[in-house]
């Protein structure tokens, strides 16, 4: 067996139908082409998942992936997660966390874990270095995610790291998530339901092997330089301490209408200035910070509510401001009320974001009389905590209207009918994070399109801003954007197409952001600005070679990002996704958005269509279908895939 650096060097295959376990060496050629983490996982998923299968059938595959940088002390690369076919969107899904079992999986000797089939009864996959066992877990079925993690550790010992589903995943809620080590969430687009369909209650991992790197001295030097830079960053205090980021970042986004409430119905300026403030957060629910694995920033927090009507014991929350605040979307009136549904989402193992959007959708339909009291099982649905808590229970247990809502916004809209689909706000079936009707400043009225909110249209997973993270979410001068493009390694000929004297072209820049971000995210990088700001295409290439001992030029690194992005796009194309699936939700293109006393106009369909055309052209995709062309795929070294494209 060859020596691996950075990589653990093995892929573990587990078939839950036959109980077969197989270990094979990591293919070095594939590693160089797809880097690692979600990159290699995407290629494996593309090859292993047959098009057209039911995501909740034994034929679906869960592919866990960990990057060659993850599990080392290089600051900023804690993230690892899974790829599969989503039961929510019917398309590609990848979801990851900074407190996953990924590092431990590598210490046990595996970069990737491929789970196929379906166990007859609930099981827990126990990996202890080379010993891999599929153990019965009927005793844990029905436990929530906290109880499951505690049960595993009390049975196997504290050295085991845990990944599990709760009742949400067991009951096949389409947006159920996987919770790792009690707080890391693989939250979006239903990985928990895929695990549930396989009767896979949990994975427990212990590894006592080590990960080494090729150039130890250089690696240490670079790690220390970056650690030093991060330690001095003023952003650390903002993200770590007492929710200071709320006033600096969350509040302006709500005031600009980029984040909003009541089923994408209105901005939330008053709530932000009076109720959901940093001060209230710090005084009411913040207890302490904690960090992702190996991270010098510590932006996570332990939160809780002492006393009051909805007390919650202190617990770790990976998005401590975002998640409780999100529940203002459907009527939580202050921080104290927002914590309870956030806690329940973790406990039951459902994606808090999708849950609140579904609930918000239901309340909106009720207010518009599309849903009656009878449809709502006799309850009056209103913008308040009572409705939120009632619907969470119904969704998790698929009780009454909960059984419909558990299918997600898109399918619930279809099933309810009577015009409900018009209010079903989703992109490819996933509720978007950012509105396209938000403005540049709170006083502006014109919609402000930037890389993140437009990027949601192209994300293969559906509407989420996290895959196209750039510096453009804050309006900047063109020179600043130009420097940013250079740092990503955008080639000169493309720079000519993107930049003019005083302007930059959003869709053409977005294509390169997607390639770059896919490259760094495949290597496990965190999307926080204080992390991303330290890495450009050049030091990523250096880091790859000193870690793995394999040389890739900066250009090859960026190209690998593009190759992964195109593979994910092909996965969706194979499932029938085309250009129309990249369009914004109907509501955003037809209804204005009220933000405080102002009204922002709807997004312009023509403008979006033009942007898609330019993005496709820059990407080498067919303009009519949005599918990568044969020529582009051959250029990316995806010859086998090119043969399958018409």
């Amino acid at each position, binding site marked *: 067996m060859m020596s691996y650096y950075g990589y653990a060097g093995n892929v573990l295959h587990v078939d839950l139908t036959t109980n077969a376990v197989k270990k094979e060496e990591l293919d070095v050629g594939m590693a160089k082409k797809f880097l690692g983490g979600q990159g290699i996982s995407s290629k494996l998923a593309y090859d292993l998942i047959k098009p057209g299968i039911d995501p909740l059938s034994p034929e679906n595959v869960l592919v866990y992936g960990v990057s060659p940088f993850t*599990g*080392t*002390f290089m*600051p900023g690369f804690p993230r690892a997660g899974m790829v599969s076919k989503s039961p929510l969107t019917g398309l590609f899904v990848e979801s990851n966390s900074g407190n996953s079992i990924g590092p431990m999986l590598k*210490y046990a000797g595996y970069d990737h874990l491929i789970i196929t089939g379906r166990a007859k009864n609930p099981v827990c996959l126990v990996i202890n270095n080379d010993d891999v066992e599929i153990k019965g877990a009927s005793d844990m079925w029905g436990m929530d995610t906290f109880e499951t993690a505690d049960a595993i550790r009390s049975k196997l010992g*504290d*050295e085991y790291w845990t990944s599990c589903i709760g009742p949400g995943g067991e009951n096949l809620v389409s947006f159920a998530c996987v919770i790792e080590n*009690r*707080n890391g969430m693989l939250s979006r687009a239903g990985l928990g339901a895929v695990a549930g369909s396989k009767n896979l209650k949990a994975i427990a991992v*212990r*590894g*006592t*092997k*080590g*990960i*080494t790197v090729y150039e*130890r001295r250089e690696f*240490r030097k670079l790690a220390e330089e970056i*650690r030093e830079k*991060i*330690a001095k960053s003023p952003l*650390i205090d903002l993200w770590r301490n007492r929710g200071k980021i709320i006033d600096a970042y969350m509040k302006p986004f709500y005031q600009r209408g980029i984040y909003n409430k009541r089923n994408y119905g209105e901005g939330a300026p008053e709530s932000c200035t009076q109720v959901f403030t940093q001060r209230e957060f710090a005084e009411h629910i913040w*207890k*302490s*910070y*904690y*960090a*992702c*694995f*190996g*991270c*010098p*920033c*510590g932006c996570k927090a*332990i939160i809780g509510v002492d006393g009051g009507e909805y007390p919650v014991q*202190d*617990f*770790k929350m990976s998005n401590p401001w975002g998640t409780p605040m999100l529940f203002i979307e459907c009527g939580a009136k202050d921080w104290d009320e927002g914590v309870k549904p956030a806690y329940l989402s973790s406990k039951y193992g459902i994606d808090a974001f999708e849950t609140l959007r579904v609930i918000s959708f239901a309340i909106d339909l009720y207010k518009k009389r599309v849903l009656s009291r009878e449809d709502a099982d006799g309850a009056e649905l209103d913008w308040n905590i009572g409705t939120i808590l009632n619907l969470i229970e119904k969704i998790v247990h698929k009780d009454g209207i909960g059984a419909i809502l558990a299918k997600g916004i898109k399918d619930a809209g279809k099933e309810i009918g009577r015009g409900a689909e018009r209010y079903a706000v989703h992109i490819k079936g996933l509720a978007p994070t950012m509105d396209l009707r938000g403005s540049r400043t709170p006083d502006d009225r014109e919609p402000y399109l930037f890389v993140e909110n437009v990027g949601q249209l192209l994300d293969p997973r559906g509407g989420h801003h996290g895959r196209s993270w750039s510096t453009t979410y804050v309006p900047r001068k063109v020179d600043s954007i130009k420097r940013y493009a250079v740092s990503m390694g955008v080639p000169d000929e493309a720079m000519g197409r993107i930049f003019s004297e005083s302007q930059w072209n959003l869709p053409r820049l977005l294509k390169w952001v997607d390639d770059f971000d896919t490259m760094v995210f495949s290597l496990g990088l965190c999307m926080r600005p204080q992390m991303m700001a330290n890495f450009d295409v050049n030091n990523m290439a250096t880091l790859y070679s000193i870690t793995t001992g394999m040389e890739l030029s900066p250009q090859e690194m960026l190209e690998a990002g593009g190759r992964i992005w195109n593979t994910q796009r092909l996965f969706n194309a194979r499932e029938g996704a085309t250009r129309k699936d990249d369009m914004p939700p109907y509501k955003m293109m037809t209804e204005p958005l009220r933000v405080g006393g102002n009204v922002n106009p709807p997004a312009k369909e023509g403008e979006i269509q033009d942007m898609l055309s330019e993005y496709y052209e820059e990407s080498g995709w067919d303009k009519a279908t949005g599918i990568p062309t044969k020529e582009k795929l051959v250029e990316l070294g995806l010859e086998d895939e090119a043969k399958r494209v018409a």
Partner: protein
Amino acid sequence: MEKRKVKRKRRIVTHPENCSGCSACQLACSFLLTGVFNPLKAYIQINWSGDLDRCINFTDECTNCGACVKYCNYGALELEEYR
């Protein structure tokens, strides 16, 4: 008068209330002392009781080299010298 070298001893003082549980100290310890990354190989151990209470312990092999201190970005570890 000839100056005599004074031999200083070092010890690591812990402030578990500041610990973020990130394990960077363990990664530094395992890498710098054993050549590979794995917190289970580190001579410093971070134990969490549930989600909240952290305690920091050292195994008998710890030499007080201070690698863990250097990599802590939370003020949870401090190198103290004494005569």
